């Protein structure tokens, strides 16, 4: 009688239970203590040599400084604020190829766009020097573990405080001890197809006098793409967002002059926004190669703008022809005249090109290789090394000053205008402040803000990106015959994707805690069982449970 009822009841409860289980398993909830946005170090191959961070997923316990020099960190993820990082220690680790589970570097919040009230008063110049050294180290080394950048926050502060407290008790966090676990679950990074570079050009044609042939052309060029240790953070406000903003403002000013046939000069103006800058100005080379030879020969000279947002009193004019050259001297005189009026000085720096050396340090060198006179205006006094000063981590909105860009714009515009309209040597202020042709710092600022929000590393900037469309539209507004040239980047670069991820931080209890809890629980249940048996059935029953085999034996016997 009893058996069928119990089995019935059992199967009913079992099915109800399993149904409930299945139902609840379908509900998904996030279960991390906190999730933080992190940005990965670039992963690329250069001429077959693998460089950068080669792994993208992370699943290790977190640890921090100070660490024992002999400790094994292959199963730990090191979380370090930038200014606490000891570069010699890191360099040692990298050169000796010691294994590391992962590296998370915390950048000061001042560098981010969404800087709130968090963060102490950080010395940005010290941050800049440390970042330069760090980026140099990381970008040119092969790191077989994930390296991520994140911004400092209260989450990380409390995490580091907890970890440091545990470290003082000299117990590194492992799976048996508890602590924090950092998990980034992304798939392995895949190779990207060779990057497309898009070069833009726009003309402001000059006024032809009836039968005259080709008018001379003056070109103004800037490269707009960047390269940095963290491609998602590489916004390059100064290198070369400042150049782009300056070029667009100059285009706007001259389009006002050239829109009226009475004020149209006898020079064509060619504006060029090139890509592929960090890769030895490969894009500029392709752009120039695409020109008809006659057009190229009609270019009187080209002004390249690079990093014009961070200078105070000295602007540099870099040339590859010797300064004694007649054309260079003429251009320099024109510039220094205006500079003197504006209250700063221009210095000339000559760097010879070595044709056999593939390294192209300045954009004007590509022009010189095509025998076009060119110069680069820059706030930098020395030529940057390969993959240096091309949009580093510290190069964010705060490192570019719109006033410096405005002064550059005025310098270039005035000198050009004096030459075009034949007012050399005269005391005249064409783009005077307050006039309708004044340099508009709002225009510069809005473009600088946009550029500082848009990471522009070429392999991750597809030609359908809205930023590209915005550049094209802006050029079309001010110039005519806007043409976009899409090419594939030359050279031995291969890039990999997966540049951003979400880091989940879990607080874990460790296996020892679970075992302890199980012990406690087991003893509680046993005590409860014994208590209930004793109170309801009597102590004899409890002892009988353990003696049951013996009792049965005696009964059967």
């Amino acid at each position: 009688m009893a058996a069928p009822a119990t089995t019935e009841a059992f199967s009913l409860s079992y099915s109800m239970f399993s149904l409930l289980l299945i139902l609840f398993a379908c509900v998904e909830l996030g279960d991390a203590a906190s999730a933080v946005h992190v940005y990965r170090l670039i992963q690329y191959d250069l001429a077959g040599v693998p460089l950068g961070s080669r792994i993208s997923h992370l699943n290790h316990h977190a640890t921090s400084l100070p660490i024992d020099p002999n400790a094994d960190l292959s199963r730990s993820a090191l979380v370090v604020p930038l200014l606490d990082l000891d570069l010699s220690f890191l360099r040692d680790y990298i050169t000796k190829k010691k294994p590391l589970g992962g590296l998370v570097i915390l950048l000061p919040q001042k560098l981010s766009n969404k800087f709130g009230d968090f963060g102490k008063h950080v010395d940005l110049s010290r941050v800049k020097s440390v970042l330069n050294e760090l980026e140099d180290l990381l970008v040119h080394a092969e790191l077989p573990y994930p390296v991520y950048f994140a911004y400092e926050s209260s989450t990380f502060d409390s995490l580091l405080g907890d970890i440091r407290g545990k470290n003082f008790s000299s117990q590194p966090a492992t799976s048996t001890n508890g602590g924090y676990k950092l998990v980034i679950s992304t798939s392995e990074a895949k190779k990207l197809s060779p990057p497309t570079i898009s070069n833009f050009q726009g003309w402001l044609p000059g006024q032809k006098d009836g039968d005259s042939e080709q008018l001379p052309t003056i070109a103004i060029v800037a490269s707009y793409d960047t390269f940095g240790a963290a491609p998602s953070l590489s916004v390059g406000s100064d290198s070369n967002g400042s150049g782009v903003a300056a070029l667009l403002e100059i285009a706007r000013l001259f389009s006002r002059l050239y829109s009226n046939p009475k004020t149209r000069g006898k020079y064509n103006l060619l504006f060029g926004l090139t890509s592929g800058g960090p890769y030895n100005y490969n894009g500029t080379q392709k752009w120039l190669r695409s020109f008809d030879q006659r057009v190229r020969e009609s270019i009187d000279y080209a002004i390249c703008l690079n990093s014009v947002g961070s200078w105070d009193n000295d602007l540099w004019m870099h040339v590859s022809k010797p300064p004694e050259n007649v054309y260079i001297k003429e251009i320099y005189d024109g510039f220094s005249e205006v500079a003197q009026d504006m209250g700063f000085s221009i210095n000339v720096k000559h760097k010879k090109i070595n044709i056999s050396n593939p390294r192209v340090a300045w954009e004007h060198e590509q022009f010189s290789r095509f025998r076009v006179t060119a110069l680069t205006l820059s706030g930098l006094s020395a030529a940057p090394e390969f993959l240096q000063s091309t949009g580093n981590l510290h190069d964010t909105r705060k490192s570019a000053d719109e006033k410096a860009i405005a002064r550059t714009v005025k310098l270039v515009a005035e000198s050009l205008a004096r030459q075009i309209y034949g007012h050399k040597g005269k005391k005249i202020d064409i783009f005077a402040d307050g006039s309708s042709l004044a340099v508009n710092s709002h225009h510069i600022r809005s473009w600088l803000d946009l550029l500082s929000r848009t990471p522009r590393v070429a392999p991750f900037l597809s030609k359908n990106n809205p930023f590209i469309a915005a550049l094209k539209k802006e050029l079309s507004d001010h110039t005519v015959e806007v043409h976009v040239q899409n090419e594939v980047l030359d050279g031995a670069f291969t890039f990999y994707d997966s540049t951003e991820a979400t880091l989940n931080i879990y607080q874990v209890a460790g296996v020892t805690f679970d075992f302890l809890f199980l012990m406690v629980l087991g003893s509680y249940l046993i005590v409860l069982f014994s208590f209930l048996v004793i109170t309801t059935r009597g102590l004899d029953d409890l002892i009988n449970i353990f003696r049951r085999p013996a009792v049965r034996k005696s009964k059967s016997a």
Partner: protein
Amino acid sequence: MTLFHFVNCALLTFGPHVVYYSATPLSEYDTLGTSIKAAVVYLLTALIKLVCLATFLKVPENEGFDPYQEVMKVLIGLVDVAGLYFALTQLTHRNISQNHKFQAVGLGWAFADSVLHRLAPLWIGARGLEFTWEFIFQGLEANANLVMTLSLAALGSLMWLRKNKPRTLIPIIYACAFLLATMPSITSYLRKALEWQTREVVGFEIFSSLVMAFFSWQLFSACQRPL
């Protein structure tokens, strides 16, 4: 490793029910059917309570303690008592003594309560990597709830199943039963109005459940003497 934690917390939450069933004479008299029926009655009661709550309560604008809402919740909590009454008196049980009847009903009731209220959060939350004390507190609450339900079932059986009771004890019985029935409101008052921490509330629950169990035990044995 966190499946381990889930197993631990599940043991803490549901283990005592199983242990109670197997340790006391309930298993010998095979009262599983009664417990299952009590569990089903609890489900129905919970549904009715949900409908009443949805109909009569407003969505609170602020987190504070609203006396009117709490009184409504107490009244709806009495639906619980009605359900228990139904389970004790109206269901046809086999020939089991009154002693065991209230235990079986209380056990089934408390088990259904635990499963409905605590299984889902446990399944979803305790399996993740993140460790919190929440589920351990939940398990302790389930234990306290079991004791309180058993006490309430005992007092209920005294009120409704036993015809001759000593006159003096009747008001005490009804007072204790009322106190037990309103226990959820008391804990929510502590949590929201006085803002006690979870561990303090759980501690209070355990302490009060033991106290109430002691009182009900005394009352029950006092009423058993004439028989």
